[in-house]
């Protein structure tokens, strides 16, 4: 049994043709189910509770990254498989899971290739992709040691899935996330006088993470969660291994 949860914004006229097409495809693939169209009166928590009570095992988000995050935050650790049919923007999460369009998503939901993924817990909320900041005042505190960025550092983050696939890969099924520090780009002149040992180096730092705290040097700093929302430091982060079951496509950015 499938529950399809349509985000509020999909009620807009501009998405109606696309939704009709999606519904047609769902019927064609034989995976049509119960549709829930969110509005100010219809609470997402109630729908999830109803799904659990009715032992519904598949919940498909129809919407964008925010839609998926809202639903994922409610089903982490529960016996529910989640899928996404991307409608609207942005769709970084769907893209990371190998879903490039709504039409492709229907075929992927139908194939139901399921993976158990790690989830990051941050001050009681959850994240799927990463948390990021470019504020040099962040301090990554690992209890026994801490990491501070030097002035030559540009950005830092903790990654469950690295959507850029640059310099490092994160495996969202290994129970470990990667704390990463990325350097500023050097001018050609600075590169010329670089030490030999750094000529082949991208200068990226990588530390395995299971649990840590992000502190700040002076004032609290903003940390971007899954490139959608912002939280202020201090933030406690913990990896919850394999707590979210997702339907994924073959073209996902991780193994």
């Amino acid at each position: 049994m499938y529950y399809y949860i349509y985000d509020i914004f999909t009620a807009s006229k501009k998405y109606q043709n696309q939704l009709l097409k999606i519904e047609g495809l769902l019927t064609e693939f034989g995976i049509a189910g119960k549709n829930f169209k969110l509005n100010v009166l219809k609470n997402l928590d109630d729908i999830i509770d109803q799904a659990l009570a009715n032992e519904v095992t598949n919940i498909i988000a129809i919407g964008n990254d925010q839609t998926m995050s809202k639903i994922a935050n409610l089903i982490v650790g529960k016996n529910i498989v989640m899928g996404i049919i991307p409608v609207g923007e942005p769709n970084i999460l769907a893209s990371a899971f190998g879903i490039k369009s709504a039409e492709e998503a229907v075929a992927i939901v139908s194939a139901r290739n399921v993976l158990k993924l790690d989830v990051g817990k941050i001050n009681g909320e959850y994240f799927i992709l990463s948390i990021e900041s470019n504020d040099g005042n962040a301090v990554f505190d690992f209890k026994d040691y801490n990491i501070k960025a030097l002035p030559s550092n540009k950005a830092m983050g903790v990654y469950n899935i690295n959507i850029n696939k640059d310099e490092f890969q994160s495996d969202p099924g290994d129970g470990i996330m990667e704390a990463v520090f990325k350097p500023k780009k050097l001018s050609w002149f600075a590169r010329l006088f670089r030490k030999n040992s750094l000529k082949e180096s991208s200068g990226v730092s990588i530390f395995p993470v299971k649990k840590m705290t992000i502190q700040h040097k002076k004032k609290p700093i903003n940390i971007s969660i899954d490139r959608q929302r912002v939280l202020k430091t201090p933030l406690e982060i913990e990896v919850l291994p394999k707590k979210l079951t997702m339907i994924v496509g073959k073209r996902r950015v991780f193994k």
Partner: protein
Amino acid sequence: MAMIINIWPLNEVGMLFKSERQKNIEGVDTIIGPTVSVEGNFKGDGNIIVEGEVKGNLKTKGYLKATESSNIIANITAGSAEIAGQLIGNAKIKENLDIKESALIQGDIETGMITVAYGAVINGNLKMKGGAVEKASEVIGEAGEEKK
């Protein structure tokens, strides 16, 4: 190019175009890059590359590579190690220690085996396991045989 693809599996073709760094970081759990400073007791089980600053203690059961740009003010313990940067502190290396010509070490070293490149600077005591004791017993043995 088509020939290459026919001969090698796709993942290995990718390897042909990987930079030295990408090849180096495979199997590495931690990279302490040149834009960070690590302070405290860093403990790892896997392989570690240090290109930046470390202050405190650095321990791993695996391989430690401290590049030319590394600045370690810490006591280090590792399974094996290659040091090409500055180390102020003691090093306890279970198996092989490879000291490169750019290395500057101020501290005592305890290791199973050691290679020191021409130009490396070491100020401290060196202690190696086994060798000296075995040699001494051989001399005694030979002397004993002569008496007979």
